[in-house]
């Protein structure tokens, strides 16, 4: 393995001190002179026609500066799937109809929050309530209420994947397993509620500070919904308090802040309350999964027939991508020679589901993994052995969809089995105790250009200075995962500089290079990392030329940037400081500053992703037979993320994944009463605390991803998947109860045992 000076080291995060001091500014921390406070009026009914809206009383309330409904807007629909305009089904404020409890109907801006809140109560809306539909079966039934006129079937997206011969596969199978699974919605529960602040300059251009994962997407969709030009909108992402997929679309309050800032000439800020976040916020898709899998007697997989229905809620949001990815993930981990997938995205009158950490994988892989465990038991094979028998390896293909490049899956399974003492514990644990395995694979960014960006997927600009420093500019968005640190590490390594030599500007659409699609799908390290390397190498070419000329080097000499110097590798005395080398290039160019642009767009990488991460996890649990409570006693993880750029960050994300996976498995769910989300605070939405976290051990399997920067690929998102199936299998091992509808609550366990 190549020796690095900064890559793979425990470099402290560059934003950590500002956060530790409380001086890092998040959107709601920013105040501007004359700023107004916005609030949104939301629909109290799940489905209905808006007969009339009377805002006159609200407008007359002293301190209220602006009240808007859709009649004050251009009424232009938006949605992230810009490549297919028919999927763009949302208006910033409801036009004629509301489709879920929490749908945005009107907005108020006032001199303070209390006044804005009071004004909301003075807006009179007359609704004609329509029958609603709250699950996929009812939505697909004959005569079901139609939620969007353009889509009478309520099925807004279909996705099929098919290869091999499925019928032949099943006819050749010795053992066929058929199961149905269902999944609850859960909340991203990022700690920072959404906030946006808009300001209009004297030319009418808009600056929007917003808690987002995707500044470029917000810029484009805000422009289109306001009927403005993209370049007249500037999006700045301040520090963001987590996203997990929940902040990657244009949101109504971003639109309202911008429009109301225009109308009033004053800055307007919206900050959501936690109750709004739970009541109306995006969430992980509830799903129904029907899976039929065929095996040979020896455990070899032969065929899989997968049908998934996603309960999308009232709008598409990122549902089309989730639909597509469910089918992709259904074909991952193991070699299925014959495979068929049908995914349907179904509208219901519930708050829209959208992207959330794992993006279809937690559901799809839960089904795969539980079925592997059932099959292993019924075929008399150990769950670890049946996985090793079928595990995907480097070079495997999913026809027309993806080719797997680096793959440390089998190594991960073996490592985790060894760490946990798997074979021994499977035999020796007492009743009430159990151990189980779950595995994952995940993408390193998406290939399919659903947003229809006209720019590179990621870009970077590097400027270097004669004082030995550099300035890295990129639109990549650090939302807490640590990408600013990782991208700086990559640049520092390439240029032979120290972290403190690099200034960074990120995620400002007017200042950082076009383009970047944002933070989702574990794309940033690979894609923005490659863009940084591309820019850095162009800088190095110039510096190397200067050194070669200055020292009259033979053309075969290798020149390097190392320890703050630019020098011939074989003759380090033929070299000079980084700053001096920059000064020489600058002189040769008559004072022109030295800078370079780099970019990355995946090409020839199939439909899904340039690289897959893999891993396996084992959970040990103890189940209290009196109360049904599950205590997770230990977690072991072995994973393959290619080169580890920042070990502390990777381990931190892994532990965070376990927290989320633990919640998904055992306690978290958005409890629905028809279209109403019942549990709208953290007291009733049960997220694991420090007391619930098990001890955890981790091994990074050593692989190198050729497409990734310095060999790196995804981490931290795929890990959201294995925890639930691992715990589920451990609970089965402990109690004999096999859960096919998450979460695994004490009630379900007690009823079963």
């Amino acid at each position, binding site marked *: 393995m190549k020796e690095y000076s900064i890559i793979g080291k425990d470099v402290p995060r560059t934003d950590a*001190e500002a*956060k530790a001091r*409380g001086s890092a500014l998040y959107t709601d921390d920013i105040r501007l002179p004359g700023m107004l406070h916005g609030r949104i009026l939301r629909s109290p009914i799940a489905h209905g026609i808006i007969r009339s809206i009377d805002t006159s009383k609200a407008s007359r309330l002293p301190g209220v500066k602006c009240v808007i409904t859709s009649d004050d807007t251009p009424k232009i629909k938006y949605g992230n799937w810009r490549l297919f305009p028919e999927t763009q089904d949302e208006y910033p404020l409801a036009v004629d109809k509301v489709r879920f409890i929490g749908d945005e109907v009107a907005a108020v801006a006032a001199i303070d929050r209390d006044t804005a809140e009071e004004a909301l109560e003075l807006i009179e809306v007359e609704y004609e309530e329509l029958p609603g539909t709250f699950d996929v079966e009812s939505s697909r039934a004959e005569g079901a209420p139609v939620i969007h006129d353009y889509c009478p079937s309520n099925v807004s997206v279909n996705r099929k994947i098919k290869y091999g011969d499925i019928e032949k596969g099943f006819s050749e199978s010795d053992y066929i397993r058929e199961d149905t699974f269902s999944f609850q919605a859960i909340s991203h529960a990022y700690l920072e509620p959404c906030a946006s602040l808009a300001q209009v300059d004297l030319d009418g251009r808009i600056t929007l500070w917003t808690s987002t994962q995707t500044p470029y997407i917000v810029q484009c969709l805000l422009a289109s919904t306001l009927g403005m030009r993209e370049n007249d909108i500037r999006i700045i992402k301040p520090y963001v308090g*987590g996203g997990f997929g929940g902040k990657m679309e244009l949101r109504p309050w971003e639109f309202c802040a911008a429009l109301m800032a225009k109308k009033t000439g004053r800055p307007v800020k919206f900050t959501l309350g936690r109750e709004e976040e739970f009541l109306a916020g995006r969430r992980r898709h509830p799903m129904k999964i029907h899976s039929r899998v065929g095996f040979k007697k020896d455990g070899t997989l032969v065929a899989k027939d997968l049908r998934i229905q996603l309960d999308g809620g009232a709008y598409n949001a990122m549902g089309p991508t989730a639909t597509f990815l469910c089918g992709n993930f259904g074909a991952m981990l193991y070699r299925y020679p014959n495979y068929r997938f049908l995914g349907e995205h179904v509208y219901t009158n519930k708050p829209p589901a959208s992207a959330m950490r794992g993006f279809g994988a937690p559901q799809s892989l839960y089904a795969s993994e539980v079925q592997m465990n059932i099959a292993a038991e019924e075929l008399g094979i150990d769950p670890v052995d049946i996985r090793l028998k079928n595990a995907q390896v480097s070079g495997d293909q999913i026809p027309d969809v993806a080719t797997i490049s680096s793959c440390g899956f089998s190594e991960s399974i073996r490592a985790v089995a060894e760490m946990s003492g798997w074979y021994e514990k499977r035999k020796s644990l007492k009743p009430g105790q159990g151990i189980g395995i779950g595995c994952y694979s995940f993408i390193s960014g998406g290939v399919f250009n659903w947003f229809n960006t006209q720019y590179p997927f990621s870009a970077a600009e590097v400027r270097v200075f004669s004082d030995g420093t550099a300035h890295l500019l990129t639109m990549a968005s650090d939302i807490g995962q640590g990408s600013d640190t990782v991208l700086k590490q990559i640049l520092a390594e390439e240029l032979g500089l120290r972290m403190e030599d690099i200034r960074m500007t990120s995620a400002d659409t007017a200042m950082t290079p076009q383009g970047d699609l944002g933070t989702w799908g574990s794309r940033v390290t690979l894609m923005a990392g490659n863009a940084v390397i591309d820019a850095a190498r162009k800088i190095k070419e110039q510096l190397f030329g200067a050194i070669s000329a200055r020292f009259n080097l033979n053309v075969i000499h290798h020149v390097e940037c190392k320890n703050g110097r630019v020098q011939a590798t074989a003759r380090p005395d033929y070299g000079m400081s980084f700053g001096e080398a920059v000064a020489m290039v600058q002189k040769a160019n008559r004072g022109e500053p030295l800078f370079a642009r780099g970019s990355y767009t995946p090409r020839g990488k199939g439909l899904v992703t340039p690289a897959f991460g893999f891993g396996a996890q084992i959970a040990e649990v103890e189940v209290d037979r009196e109360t049904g409570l599950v205590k997770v006693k230990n977690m072991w993880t072995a994973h393959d993320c290619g080169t580890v750029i920042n070990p502390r960050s990777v381990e931190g994300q892994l532990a965070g994944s376990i927290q989320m996976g633990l919640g998904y498995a055992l306690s978290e769910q958005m409890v629905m009463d028809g279209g109403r989300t019942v549990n709208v*605070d953290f007291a009733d939405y049960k997220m694991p*605390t*420090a007391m619930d976290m098990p001890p955890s051990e981790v091994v990074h399997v050593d692989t190198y991803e050729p497409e990734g920067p310095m060999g790196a690929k995804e981490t931290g998102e795929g890990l959201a998947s294995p925890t639930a199936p691992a715990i589920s299998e451990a609970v089965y091992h402990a109690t004999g109860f096999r859960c096919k509808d998450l979460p695994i609550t004490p009630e379900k366990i007690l009823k079963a045992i």
Partner: protein
Amino acid sequence: MKHNIKIVVNGDEYSLAVDPWRTLNEALREDLNLTGTKLGCGTGDCGACTVIVDGRAVSSCLTLAVSVDGKSVTTVEGLAPSGDELHPIQEAFIKTGAIQCGFCTSGMEIAALHLLSNNPSPTELEIRKGLSGHLCRCTGYNQIVEAISVAGEKMKKCCHEEERS
């Protein structure tokens, strides 16, 4: 009618006129511009808004500003002794990787200060209990627990040295 209150925040005395329903969180963030204290839920469930009032850790979102009249408040901005130095708790949070998105951090650090002031050598379980009113969605808590343990050791050493000198 607004009430006049006097509070000492991080050693500085402030006089404020506040509505009776104004929370300490609003007073800190909006009147005093001390935005290091966050607001994560407004219902006292997440711990992001935690500050210390006269030695007690409280949710500033549930504490009325009028109720802290005459009292002393410590927020995250009061931890570091200067712009060049950090508090051992902050240092440990940075070093162990206990900070990701950072939104829970100030509340966690204040909880750590409260815990370590009352129990200079907490066990791991005591640290976890001390954090059980604080939610984090990024870190899985383990590195935060480690940070508090590291900070506790460092603080004991500092105090010990101070006593000796």
